[in-house]
């Protein structure tokens, strides 16, 4: 996930799903060079600071997400969708595409938040 509206949308969807299905929630933050405490802050903002497990790393996002999903025995990966413009949608589509090659775990693309 990322620290912007798309990341928040993915986070909100993941939290709702994990609550409804009583699933373990692991948040992964794989953007280059951003400290892990951002993730802790985001988790706290959404009220899952003590419930969600947190993983962060730097490197190729798709590869890292795939690796973390495998290590955590994940059943589902939630990523954010880009709502603004065709170009950015294209970029994000690439992450979902790449995840298809990195992991056999299903990928859910969360739609953007409409409010705010």
């Amino acid at each position, binding site marked *: 996930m990322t620290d912007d509206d798309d990341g928040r949308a993915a986070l909100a969807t993941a939290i709702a799903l994990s609550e409804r299905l009583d699933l373990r929630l692991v948040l992964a933050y794989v953007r280059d060079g951003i400290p892990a405490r951002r993730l802790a802050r985001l988790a706290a903002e959404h009220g899952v600071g003590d419930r969600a497990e947190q993983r962060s790393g730097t490197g190729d996002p798709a*590869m890292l997400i795939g690796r973390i999903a*495998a*290590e*955590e*025995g*994940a*059943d589902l990966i939630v990523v954010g969708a880009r709502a603004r413009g065709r170009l950015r949608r294209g970029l994000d589509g690439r992450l979902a595409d790449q995840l298809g*090659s990195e*992991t056999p*775990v299903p990928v859910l693309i969360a739609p953007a938040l409409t409010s705010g």
Partner: protein
Amino acid sequence: MRSPLSVFWRVFAVNAGLLGVLAALLLFSPVEIDAPIRPVQALIIVLGLMLTLAANGYLLRRALDPLERLAQRMETVDLLRPGQRLQILRDDEISRVVIAFNRMLDRLESERRQSGRRILLAQEAERVGIARDLHDEVGQVLTGVLLQLGALEERAPEHRAEIAEAKQTVRRAFDEVRRISSELRPEMLEQLGLVSALTELTTTFARVSGIGVERRFDQSLPTLAPETELAVYRIAQESLTNVARHAQATRVTVALEQGYDSVVLRVVDDGSGFDGEPAEHGGLRSMRERALLIGGALAIKPAVPTGVDVRLEVPAIEAVHPVGVAR
């Protein structure tokens, strides 16, 4: 997106089409080429050439893009982290290479599993052998020494204190031999099951290392295959060894929880942890190897606020799917 045309025919068709248009222009349009060429004519030819090259470039790039990804995947593939496969987007020569590569990964991963299993089985067999030798041979000798000391004690009562001390030392050595041989061969695991074996392991660990251990074992856990139980035990053992060696921890929590069709082992310490990625030394590699062989998922990550959190999820005996794949 699927297209029945192969890369060859797509490139050929574009070239043929563009060359055809140029030829038609030259044949049927009023365009003429004079002996000393005029600027307009030169411009038309150069434009045509550039158009052909641009179309060619675009097409070739699109056609060869999967090759780029294939090369990247070939560089980064890690058999200890299986499941990476390239997707097939088109139906052409390159996708045949991709399919062949994916099949090769299938084969490599399965061979890797088999050879890993053989190595671990051989290792376990050797450990059982060493444990038996230690217990039977060295144990016998030590028992003999104890008996001799006892006899000596009766014959030389003036040295009673020294002999008692020697007997104490021999008994300590005897205990050590028993401890090492039970570490090598977890008999407890075969006889009383995982929970008892882990209880014994953690009790011994706390006594030897002086690190406080908190045990949290769920009362009812799904049944595990013997092979899986051994892997959980060995990974717990290796994690605790790492805690004692590297962590400078004061407390460690060892938990066995019920998962979804699975059992989760957690070993969490409050030590110094690691920076970035943990170094993949021999111990961690063998942990990954064991987890891989039984279809488990192993994560080694920083704990909150400090320390290392080892999480292993293994499939229960009645589980239909490996851990972490949609059920």
